[in-house]
């Protein structure tokens, strides 16, 4: 049974008809990998699914309900990661997580440590975000996704700037998320290290 369904999505960006009658469904424990050439509309699709872009027509439903009718309920189960890491340069990694994921979920300092260690971020690293490399910032942003503990992940190029070990780490946390019945829609050109029976592909042209 599909938890997330998209039906006949249409969206224009200026004169460009980016989403042309797109439909798909995604059940628990499944991952949809969105691919396509640059400008094909991968980020646009993810933003439209998240409700950041209004659709011209079509509908997205979550647990059988139109996401536009109960946006708050949908968003409370959504972890979103776009190109921007949403990290504050003048805050350390734990501070960033406390003040971003903390807006949505109650968790302890130990939970922050656990999330950071799962994404391979060094313990007791007191550096400010602006002093971190792009890959380290990405890891902290992924730690926020873990802390949010949401059923649905919408991730746009989550492994950009990550080294090989970082990409393997992402494969592990994604697999664990799917194993527990979570869903993920991921726009990426890189191969995702998840079981083949959990993976669906969607190529935008």
């Amino acid at each position, binding site marked *: 049974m599909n938890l997330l369904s998209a039906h006949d999505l249409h969206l224009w960006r200026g004169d460009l008809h980016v989403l042309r009658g797109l439909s798909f469904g995604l059940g628990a424990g499944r991952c949809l990998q969105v691919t396509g050439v640059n400008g094909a509309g991968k980020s646009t699709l993810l933003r439209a699914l998240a409700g950041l872009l209004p659709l011209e027509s079509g509908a997205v439903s979550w647990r059988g309900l139109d996401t536009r009718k109960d946006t708050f309920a949908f968003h409370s189960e959504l972890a979103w990661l776009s190109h*921007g890491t949403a990290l504050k340069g003048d805050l350390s990694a734990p501070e960033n997580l406390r003040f971003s994921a903390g807006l949505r979920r109650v968790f302890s300092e130990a939970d922050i440590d656990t999330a950071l260690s799962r994404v391979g971020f060094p313990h007791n690293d007191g550096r400010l975000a602006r002093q971190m490399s792009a890959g380290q910032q990405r890891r902290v942003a992924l730690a926020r996704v873990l802390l949010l503990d949401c059923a649905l992940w919408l991730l746009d190029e989550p492994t950009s700037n990550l080294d090989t070990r970082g990409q393997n780490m992402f494969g592990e946390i994604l697999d664990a998320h799917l194993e527990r019945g979570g869903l993920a829609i991921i726009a990426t050109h890189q191969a995702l290290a998840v079981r083949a029976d959990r993976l669906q592909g969607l190529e935008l042209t």
Partner: protein
Amino acid sequence: MSNATPTAVSSARAGWLLVQRDLRLGLRRPGEWLQPLVFFLVVTTLFPLATDPQMSRLRDIAPGALWVAALLSSLLALELLFREDGQDGSLEQLAVSGLPLSWLLLAKTCVHWLMTGLPLVLAAPLVATALGAPYAAIPGILAALLLGSVALSLIGAVGAGLTLGLRRGGVLLALLVLPLAVPVLIFGARATALAIALEPMAAPMYLLGAIVVLSATLAPLAAAAAVRISLE
């Protein structure tokens, strides 16, 4: 996704956390809130230099000088209100947080006022005295600037939201906000003039209060709509 249902955060706690975050960021970047304050002090200091420095003349222009300087200082700071959050993706995170965006933006606007509006209010006695206002007028001037600066921050949040994604949005921001700020300027300057004349200033203060209430009610909703449009 854990097996246990994650504990959600109330809107009040989320707003408080956002206030804490922005205050902490502001304290780590003093330049951002010192800039409008210094601008306010410099502009009000220029008036006596450019006009006849007789105290009676200065006292006459004091309300206008104070309020125009406060308005321009407020504009200077407004560009910073949502810009960084828009650029780094934080506003997107707020928009999909499952919490009312208008409430979160109100929390951000409160911090913005604390960092940029309140210092102007606190500096006002010094500036007003330098412009020849009697000491007895200071409480009235403080009260008028307190209400006026809150209204300017709230009104400015709508303009800041609308110009979020624009390059060089500062000019457009001024064009959008200045007309909306005219009532604040008129009633604020009138209240200040009455305070300096040591006359009752209840009427313009009530009107300023009404503007604050109206702005606090409508501006966060308008700012949230503006931010959502800018994020598209």
